């Protein structure tokens, strides 16, 4: 199951990150997952939130460029080798990882990997066949936090 991720264009300068994050705080949006990619000139803020359509509209109304992309979130055991096994599976199928980020939920003893694959459907199919838990909805991330 693919999740919707919001990407925002940011300039690489002081304060650039504060404005969108501040907007989300004011709107009481809880961020489920977040990463920042950067070059020396600009950055991309990537977010996974519960009600992505409302958050997209909010950010766009404030003048941000928001791109919605499909990502795949995967649960792995919080132990060495968890990521290696996943990569082995997609590599063998020649699926490219365009970007990824990860976080651990120590209290749940698990890690969550967020991937953008060039062929997400095929990746999901292969990973599921391997018995990997592909996260089915944002709610799963949210519930696990609380």
């Amino acid at each position, binding site marked *: 199951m693919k999740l919707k991720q919001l990407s925002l*264009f940011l300039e690489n300068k002081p304060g650039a990150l504060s404005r969108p994050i501040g907007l989300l705080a004011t709107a009481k949006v809880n961020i489920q997952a977040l990463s920042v990619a950067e*070059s020396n*000139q600009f950055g991309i803020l990537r977010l996974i939130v519960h009600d992505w359509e409302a958050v997209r509209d909010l950010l766009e109304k404030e003048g941000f460029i928001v791109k919605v992309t499909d990502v795949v979130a995967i649960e792995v055991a919080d132990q060495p080798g968890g990521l290696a096994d996943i990569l082995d599976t997609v590599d063998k199928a020649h699926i490219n990882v365009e970007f990824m980020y990860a976080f651990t939920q120590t209290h749940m003893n698990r890690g969550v990997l967020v991937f953008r694959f060039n062929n997400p459907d095929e990746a999901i199919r292969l990973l599921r066949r391997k018995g990997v838990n592909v996260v089915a909805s944002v709610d799963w991330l949210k519930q696990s936090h609380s």
Partner: protein
Amino acid sequence: MRKSQRPLNGRFHPASAPDFLPHDQLRALQWQRLAETVRRAYSRVALFRKRMDERGLTPDDIQSLDDVPRLPFTVKTDLRDTYPFGLFASPMKDIVRLHASTGTTGKPIVVAYTPSDLQVWANVMMRSFAACGLHEGDIIQNAYGYGLFTGGLGAHYGVEALGATVIPISGGNTQRQLAVMVDFGTTAICCTPSYFLHIIDQAQESGVKLKDLPLRVGVFGAEPWTDAMRRRIEADSGIKAYDIYGLSEIIGPGVGMECQCQAGPHIFEDWFYPEVVDLATGKPCADGVEGELVLTTLGKQAMPMIRYRTRDITALVTEPCECGRSLRRIKRIARRSDDMMIIRGVNVYPSQIETALLKVEGALPHYQIILTRDKGLDEMEVDVEVTPEVFGDTVGALEEVQQKINASIERVIGLRAKVRLVQPQTIQRSEGKAKRVIDQRKM
């Protein structure tokens, strides 16, 4: 002393003889050539005939130089609208050279020369070099670009006509310029003043002492520059820096040139008739009053120009020059009347940047051009607001957009710009329209 200049009141180069024509003879020559030019333009160029017909004028109505202000103006867009050959007054079999410069919409303007036009050009360029004290035996490094740009070939044939030695090195490759300057014993250089400032910096970095070289004269043009720049050039390099004026539409470089008094370019009035008009009304300005320089060619065959509006802001100086030339001078040009930018001697319009952006993005994003000057070289930064269309979610995709814009700008204007992607709504808008150009260059 190696740096000796020729004495001001000493022997003038014989090539400069026409510069000293008595006023009455000069005016008579101008009138004779003007009458021929008007007749030629009227009978051979549809646009000129139409413009004159609209005013109920025939060539016979122009009875003296005093009637020049009755003639219609010609403007840059006329050259574009008639692109490529619409203003030619000679058949192609009589034309031996074409030059072109870039235009706003990717459409350049084209200019043409018959053999006699090339002779006129070589003549005024020869007199330009002679005016600043160059002569046979001088080794002149021509660092203007060779090609469609008129600077390179224009200067080239002027040096040869003078009988001096030309080094046709063209622009760029500063280390090579310095090596040639040292090895060949260059005595004079032609280039844009900003490029020479860069040469000065490079020389300092490479340990080349310009002051110890035989180099003694710089012929600088193709972009506005100030007396402050002249002082810096002269102090740092030990040369004399002279301002040459010209534009492709009239002939190229050599429309006017400073003499050794360095008191503003003398217009070679036997070939080019100068007026200065009020920007708003188009009415002639009194001598010494600033306005737009308007030039009429006197004797150009392939492409006569009637009252061409140069967009250069200056004033006519009629006080006699100490050198004794009868040719009137113009005040040195420091600004242009329109939005054209001169970057490293190359004409660039904001609309060209728009063209380049459109090619990449399909729709025009908000953008801003910021001009700075670093080590004597103009730098152009183009800030472009990111649009949903180009935002690709990966850093690689954005960098690709950046590179595409870079390449597109370089293709359109022939210069590299630094492209910066910025957040939407960050470029200041005034009255709904963005301020397109911020010029931070200190002249």
